[in-house]
């Protein structure tokens, strides 16, 4: 997979900005070019049948249960789930570290562009995956840390996808994905149209809700359902 262009407006939104001026746009383009050179987009996925159980949803043939109500609501009506692990790679982290030493403005902008890159990689991965799968309907991506789906699922999701071996994705003891610009997500798939019951997956369940620059500026990042 190669990413040719990054959504710079989205990167600005992550930074909490609108109406970027000349200098910001120039730096944004510079950083985009530098980042595109070092991106190594990779993803791996596996597909599991899901069985509702007391605590949430069990992934059959594995020892892992997706716990909580929110994931159950999100995958309502789905018979299977795709576990997706994706990463922008080590190069992005290194570039951010390098810019941190040289120029904090570039570092902040590169950081936000790299977050955008990780999302774009997920979008592309989803397209590629679903062009191969025979299921007609799918849900949005849902990640550990959203709603009541615990972050401590990360190690299990990585293990189920063999993500360390296959794409070099790790998780720290504090449950941080490394390389940093990486995403794990669960996507429900079904033969029949799916209508996830959204009520619990609102912005408010996001850990960044209180200070979210996007929300405070009247925007919406798309990861959660807006009010």
């Amino acid at each position, binding site marked *: 997979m190669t990413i040719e262009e990054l959504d710079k407006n989205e990167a600005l939104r992550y930074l909490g900005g609108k109406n970027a001026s000349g*200098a910001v746009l120039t730096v944004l383009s510079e950083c985009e070019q530098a980042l595109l050179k070092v991106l190594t987009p990779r993803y*791996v996925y596996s597909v599991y049948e899901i069985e509702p159980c007391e605590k949430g949803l069990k992934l059959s043939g594995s020892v892992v249960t997706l716990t909580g109500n929110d994931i159950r609501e999100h995958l309502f009506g789905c018979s299977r789930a795709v576990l997706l692990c994706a990463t922008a790679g080590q190069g992005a982290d290194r570039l951010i*570290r390098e810019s941190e030493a040289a120029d*904090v403005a570039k570092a*902040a902008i590169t950081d936000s562009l790299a977050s955008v890159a990780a999302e774009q990689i997920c979008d592309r991965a989803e397209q590629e995956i679903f062009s191969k799968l025979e299921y007609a309907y799918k849900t949005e991506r849902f990640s550990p840390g959203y709603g009541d789906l615990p972050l401590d699922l990360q190690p299990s999701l990585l293990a189920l996808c063999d993500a360390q*071996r296959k*794409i070099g994705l790790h998780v*720290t003891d504090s*449950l941080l994905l*490394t390389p940093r610009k990486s995403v794990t997500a669960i996507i429900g798939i079904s033969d029949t149209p799916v209508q996830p019951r959204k009520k619990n997956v609102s912005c408010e369940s996001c850990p960044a809700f209180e200070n979210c620059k996007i929300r405070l500026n009247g925007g919406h990042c798309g990861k959660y359902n807006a009010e």
Partner: protein
Amino acid sequence: MLNKLLAKKEFIIFDGAMGTQLQAKGLAAGETPELLNFTAPDMIKEIHSEYLKAGADIITTNTFGANRHKLARCGKTPAEVIPAAVNIAKQAIAQSKKAAYCAADIGPIGQLLEPAGTLRFEEAYDIFAEQVTAIEKSGADLIIAETFSDLYELKCLILAVKENSSLPLICSMSFEENMRTFEGCPPEAAVLLCEGLGADAVGVNCSLGPNELMPVIERICSLTKLPVIVQPNAGLPDPMTGKYNVLPKDFALAMVNAAKAGAAILGGCCGTTPEYISKLTAAVSELKRVNRERVSYPAVCSGTSVCVIDRPRVIGERINPTGKKLLKQALKDGDTGYILNQAIEQTSAGADILDVNVGLPDIDEKAVMVKVIKALQGVCTLPLQIDSPDPEVLEAALRIYNGKPIVNSVNGEEKSLSKILPLVKKYGAAVIGLTLDENGIPKKAEERFEIAKRITERALGMGIAKEDIFIDCLTLTASAEQAAADETLKAVRMVKERLGVHTVLGVSNISFGLPKRELVNHIFLAMALENGLDLAIINPNSELMSGTVRAFRLLKNIDVNCTEYISAYSEESAAQATPQKSEEMTLSDAIAKGLKDNAAKLTEQLLTTEAPMDIINNRLIPALDKTGAEFESGKIFLPQLILSAAAASGCFDVIKRELSKGGSSISKGKIVLATVKGDIHDIGKNIVKVLLENYGYTVIDLGRDVDYETVVEAAIKHDVKLVGLSALMTTTLKSMEETIKLLKKRKPDCKIVVGGAVLTEEYAMKIGADFYSKDAKQTVDIAKKVIG
């Protein structure tokens, strides 16, 4: 044991996959495979037996993840798992009645090492040492380290093996189609490091099928003198079915090509089964092993990039405090940011290697060296040259360096030779030998040559390769000893021609005490290059100096088609075409618009007419206040604020440089900043840092993933009134709370301000912080309130 086996057999056959075989036999996804050594030993033994029957000479124990970190989930320890697994393998071998061997398997820990992750080198060493100790006691015949992708982690493991075991060690890394590992390590660096540290075989496994791995296999075979191991996957798996796409017979055919390329140890990884190994055994049974010619490969490397000394190369000299006030201050203050900047500047100016010297009379050189090297290798890809006369400092740095560095230096004195060369050998470095001894620097070239010869012979005698010996014939000051310049050049030529080793010179010393130093320097450099200089220690930021090396490479037909020369200078003419219109702009404009270069230039101009403090108080601070106010009122947004802050810091740097000339400095007070333990999101804290510095505060930046203790110690040492803590993850807020607790106990007079995306004012107060700051601007206001 490996060599004995290779003397008897053309090829050593390894087994195939364990993990995918276990899954085929019913291991549930997500389960810990090492537990099966206890719960299903017969299943493991059956897999071993099948591989032995298929032709394997060496079978691999079911211990890939048997490290403290990965086993934590299942409650077993390496000391329990490893002997159990080795025992099963040994039983299988005994039952097979074959002369086969048992390789104890070690895989990566499962966490990234610093700076990409949070696992410290020393901690990783402990984890591996625990495994190796258990292996050593278990009766295994050898160790195989496989599926590594981080060279740093592999280095850690090799050291743990060498220091805790006498077993042979095979090192195997996983490469992608771009000829790099996930961590960016190229095969050349893997070979340099593994050979240098004393691995017994090197090679590749996993990641791809045998055909896709061929370019990497060929590359490794062309570089190393060690036996090469190849264990590819059975192609790629289908995510739906888990089935691999290369059939056993095709796998065997492809492995014949690997054997023809020079590999001597063959086996399989994910997706391979006994059938693959049996077909492989048959396919190579009639084949003879290729006797590879070992070509000389003079090179040093970092974890991700290699510098081959096949042409004159530039060693950047700027990270050396001698005669550099700002660097001295930065070292004393522990300001690694300044040093990193020096590295970045030299890299973009065209340096190939960077010298690192942190020697100052009143600092803990060892601790500072380790800190600086760790910081440098996090951002800078160039190989480093570790520069210290102290063997203890050298060893500490060699240990934690990710790659094959140069040691600067050893000399002809017995105590230097006997202390430093063993370190060079142990850590697989290259070394600079200075042509001086107990009697000082000889005047004549012939005498310096004699010392060079002595150093070279001693190094060779210790098993250091000839290509890793660089001789420095020493540059003396021309204004003091005018005749010496010629002797140095003569010595360079003699060493190069007669000893056949590489030569290195610190060039700048030639012009000490003279006017127009660069003029003398670059001519002397050109003369030295013509006399056979390979490595020039110079200031690469000097256009004339790095330009001389580039022009020399061009004129000697080394830079074929002048590509390198043209690419270095074509951008420059383009840049000149767009003149800077800084004269029409005020400093306030430059800061408001976020134009860093203009801000710096304008400051330089202003300094000719205004006092530094006036510029800060009358221009810089008002400009920052204005952007700050615009940010607060929502007129501008974070990106503009940060750009303005960065531009202001460009202005500030110029002023600091000016002030340091007169020996004075400006500081409103010190503030300690840290991103808490477990968290590596650094951006927010760094924005705060720049803004605080803009307002004249001295920031002691402890970096990220900082221990509670370190924060408290820094707060006490610098007696600060304010500590700022940042955390971005809900999972690391706990660390923030712990840090605050410890601070309140040990330095109660110090105020604490906290910030971070997931933090709220309410929560900040709950965990005992004095202030909650929603952004960088507010932190400045808090600093004003606390410090003034």
